[in-house]
């Protein structure tokens, strides 16, 4: 449970920074979405049987919804579906497990 709280706080922090600080530091004219990068990296590096990555994606989608003007929940849904697909792909074809 502590791990999930920590992950939620970490994702929240990245989301807040993304919506305030990172926008002022574009790289080659573009602002990378660090939240998406974090989700993809987490999904890529977590253990095969772990489902934390999907939760991380859910939290990220939730924060996206907070800072967006689309109908609430659309991003959460997209992140969850995307994370599920990525998880299946990574498990089948990549298989790097560093995060426990």
């Amino acid at each position, binding site marked *: 449970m502590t791990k999930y709280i920590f992950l939620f706080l970490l994702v*929240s922090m990245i*989301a*807040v*920074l993304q*919506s*305030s*600080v990172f926008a*002022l*530091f574009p790289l080659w004219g573009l602002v990378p979405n660090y939240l998406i990068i974090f989700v993809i990296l987490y999904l890529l590096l977590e253990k095969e*049987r772990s*489902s934390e990555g*999907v939760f991380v994606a859910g939290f990220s989608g*939730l*924060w996206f*919804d*907070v*800072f967006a003007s689309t*109908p*609430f*929940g*659309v991003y*959460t*849904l997209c992140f*969850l*579906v995307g994370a*599920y697909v990525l998880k299946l792909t990574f498990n089948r074809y990549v298989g790097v497990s560093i995060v426990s």
Partner: protein
Amino acid sequence: MRKKRNVFVWAITILTLLIVVSLFFPFLSGVREVGRAVTSPLQGVLLSATVELKNRVEVFQSAEEVRNELEKLRGIEKRLQVALTEKEELKKENTALKEALGVDLHQEKEPIFAKVTGRELGKDRVIIHHTEKVSEGSLVMTPEGQLVGVIDSPGERSSSVRLLTSKESSFEVAIQSKNDPIGVLRGTGERELLLDLLPKDKDIKRGDRVVSLAGEKVPIDGVFIGRVAELKESDVEAFNTAKVWQGIDHRRLTYVFVAKK
């Protein structure tokens, strides 16, 4: 694993249903409001701190640019100092030669240095700022000694210069090395000048140097004006005309010299 997958599929289905319902009954927008209210103080602090930091970084970067520019200018200053020393030596040598040849030093007058400060709107006139008093009709030249105009309305510290390109400008000129008048030089309002009333029997070629001829409007002889760019011979007209190219962009003039009358 299968159980986990089922839970996940159920979660996604419920969420999808919630979103669809919330499109018609926006009860979930309250969550957004709460989320934004919680994070806004932190975001505000972070944003202002970042902007402050970025401003400082930009100031630091521009300071770096200024420093580099200063280094370049120091290099130029050194070169100029060397050139100035050489000029002083040449001046001394020149004075010594003149003394030896018995030339009266007081016959020559140093030109007045002036800075171009602006341009009169809609007219071929520039405004110059000078430290010494100038008189009407004095010649205005580039640092290279090429004639660009004549003082039109003199003032104590700033004067108006009527450029040669002005349509109001016209005076007699000569071809260098042939001291007799060959025609009248007129401004066209463009960068090129028109050499009018050229006698047909005069041998004038493209590239000939056009110089001033002392008269009513121009007080000094032999000041370089430009080169003949194109000769227009006419069988019908009594005189030929020619285009004179100065090769000066008057918009870029920054410093000029005013010849004392």
